[in-house]
């Protein structure tokens, strides 16, 4: 195989304790022409301080509208092996669990059909197969399905759902995040593979309010575990923490956002009526405290990155439901599908659901999907007096008068 290109700038990034992506590309470059050209083009970007990829381009696999990101070098003469260099987004298994066996098979398949470079994982959660040519797309897809894998989302469709490790390894999981993720993914295969919405739709499942999958910041629907009853408390263990040097007053009590704890040096008292399920005290004393027994999740809606109307965080949509109960999940799906209908009907092109709700108003949105407003949806009621008093109310009054 040919020599690697000279990369004095990139070589600097082989130094230091953190794993080096340059080393990874170099290893691959020993086997793959494309990776050699990638290295060359990247060095050029480092020298010129500018990227060298052309804008998009629609490529894909038969019958799918998403899952492949088309990419072309803007220096195809200099770097012909990456004149196309498309990535495939492959739907990861819930919780990113693998066996060495399945990983090796994936590797073999990708060495055969693509660059041999991956992202484990992309920031939505997919396995990213980084770079192949247009003719290799279908064979890669075939290779994937042979291994039991399928593509993830891209474009205006359901994006690959992802979740925290949840009950698989975490004592705080308030519902089965892996199961719900798998269930939603399987239920919405069509919506995942065939863009049909005004814009993308992301689901992210976190088992408790620590939100280890950052769902509240980057999911159109964020499903975050929580509980209804009292925190489970083991006073003996609390004492042990105190004896071991934890300053319970300063580090726990004074950090409680509900201001509902007190500590007299002997006994920790939680006024659970005002506990906000923030997790802090539990995080600090995992042996002494645990979420209650009546567990479930809060469903939130609408977060996204800033383009176009500014970033949004998800906000409370259903204060409490139990995702481990199949009936409640069925109801949730009905609501989701109702939202998709309304949003697809009335949403503007490239308008995420969070932006859509703000444009039409939460009250109107709820009416359109047939749900009732509850105070949990707001941080506080409106501060401005610009109320669109509901007309039907007045009609009722008028009717009363007519009678």
């Amino acid at each position, binding site marked *: 195989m040919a020599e690697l290109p000279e990369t004095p700038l990139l070589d600097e990034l082989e130094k*230091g304790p953190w794993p080096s992506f340059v*080393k990874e590309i170099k290893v691959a470059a020993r086997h793959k022409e494309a990776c050699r050209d990638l290295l060359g083009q990247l060095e050029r970007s480092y020298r010129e301080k500018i990227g060298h990829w052309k*804008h998009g381009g629609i490529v894909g696999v038969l019958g799918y509208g998403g899952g492949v990101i088309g990419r072309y070098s803007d220096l195809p003469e200099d770097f012909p092996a990456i004149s196309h260099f498309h990535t495939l987004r492959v739907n990861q298994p819930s919780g990113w*669990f693998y066996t060495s066996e399945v990983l090796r098979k994936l590797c073999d398949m990708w060495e055969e059909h693509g660059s041999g*470079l991956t992202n484990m994982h992309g920031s939505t959660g997919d396995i990213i197969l980084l770079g192949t040519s247009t003719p290799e797309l279908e064979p890669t897809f075939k290779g994937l399905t042979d291994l039991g894998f399928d593509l993830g989302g891209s474009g205006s469709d359901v994006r690959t759902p992802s979740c925290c490790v949840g*009950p*698989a390894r975490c004592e705080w999981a308030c519902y089965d995040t892996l199961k719900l993720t798998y269930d939603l993914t399987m239920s919405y295969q069509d919506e995942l593979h065939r863009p049909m919405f005004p814009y993308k739709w992301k689901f992210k499942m976190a088992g408790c309010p620590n939100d280890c999958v950052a769902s509240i910041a980057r999911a159109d629907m964020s499903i975050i575990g929580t509980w209804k009853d009292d925190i489970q408390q083991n006073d003996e263990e609390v004492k042990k923490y105190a004896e071991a040097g934890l300053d319970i007053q300063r580090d726990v009590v004074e*950090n409680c*956002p509900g201001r509902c704890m007190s500590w007299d040096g002997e006994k920790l008292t939680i006024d659970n009526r005002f506990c906000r399920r923030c997790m802090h005290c539990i995080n600090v004393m995992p042996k002494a405290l645990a979420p209650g027994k009546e567990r479930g999740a809060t469903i939130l809606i609408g977060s996204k990155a800033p383009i176009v109307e500014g970033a949004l965080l998800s906000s409370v949509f259903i204060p409490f439901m139990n995702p481990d109960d199949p009936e409640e999940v069925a109801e949730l799906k009905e609501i989701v599908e109702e939202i998709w209908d309304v949003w697809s009907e009335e949403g503007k092109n490239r308008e995420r659901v969070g932006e859509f709700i703000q444009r039409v108003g939460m009250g109107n949105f709820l009416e359109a999907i047939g749900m009732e407003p509850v105070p949990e949806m707001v941080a506080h009621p409106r501060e401005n007096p610009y109320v669109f008093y509901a007309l039907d109310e007045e009609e009722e009054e008028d009717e009363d008068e007519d009678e």
Partner: protein
Amino acid sequence: MAEAAERVTDIGPPNYQQFLPPIIKANYGKWKYHEILKPGVMMHVAESGDRLYTVRAAGARLMSVWKIRQIADLADKYCGGHLRFTSRHNIEFLLTDESLIDPLIDDLKALGHPVGGIGNSISSIVHTQGWIHCHSAATDASGIVKAVMDEVFPHFANRDLPAKLRIALACCLNMCGAVHCSDIAILGVHRKPPRTDHETLNKLCEIPNVVAACPTAAIRPAQVDGKESVQVIEEQCMFCANCYTVCPAMPLNDPENDGVSIWVGGKVSNARHEPMFSKLLVPYIPNNPPRWPEVTGTITKIIDLWARNARNYERLGEWIERITWPKFFELTGIPFQKEHIDDFKHAGLTFKRSTHLVH
């Protein structure tokens, strides 16, 4: 069409259950508590008494299949071939035999994947494609990430911080890294309006879509040299690149004026404080590859200040909120400029609407 009928589609991902290690299958949903044993190593104890040891190794995210095979080998050697990745792209080995922890750590180190990132430490940087794969990038992703992680590495390898610290990077305002809620965010920015290619625009793009794409209404339909195209009112452009996303004929990339901005004080968890957006700290640092020293310098300075001054469990944003932003600017010595003052939609709500000041 016979071929299409044979084709397997819509099978979804493999069911995760087949990949769970036996100890997890046995104790699924029955974990009782956990303890951090040392940097990068934690133990989860189940109601059954079973103990699961997790060793977390630094993820490269961009990995070759040759590396993944080596990692698979380690999983075979130490934990029955079971492993997982985390939501921040680290690699977790799931052990049942405590005595294998140290040998695994040694092997990982030798492979170039040191362990850490558990507890009150810095974990790896959630990031994006940059010059590796995206057309939109105002900076590289993997390169800065590598440079920053090398610099802050002691805080990955140790648990010496007041709380967790999450860094994220996105190479343009699309913010694929969802950097908008990070303790520290590095964000690629453009600073020049799009250069419109009037020759091709009308062929490549729908003019009404392009006009609609601009959040500040800076784009107007216009005839240029007899061609249907658009005109950008440059004073109204704030370089978001949304026009470029919908229309390839309007690139913003510019080697001299692209660069990165630094944002601080966001968080995601509900622990103590509600989730918060990150806020602008340094509006602009020029791209300085390969190691972006001004970026790493600024970040280590912030981390040092926070580590020395914050209270236990106080995330960066919580600390700044307590000491107030003016104090934080004073401590960092970073100049406060016009750019820091919001002038987008909700600007007024970010003004200081009280006399709660430290003098």
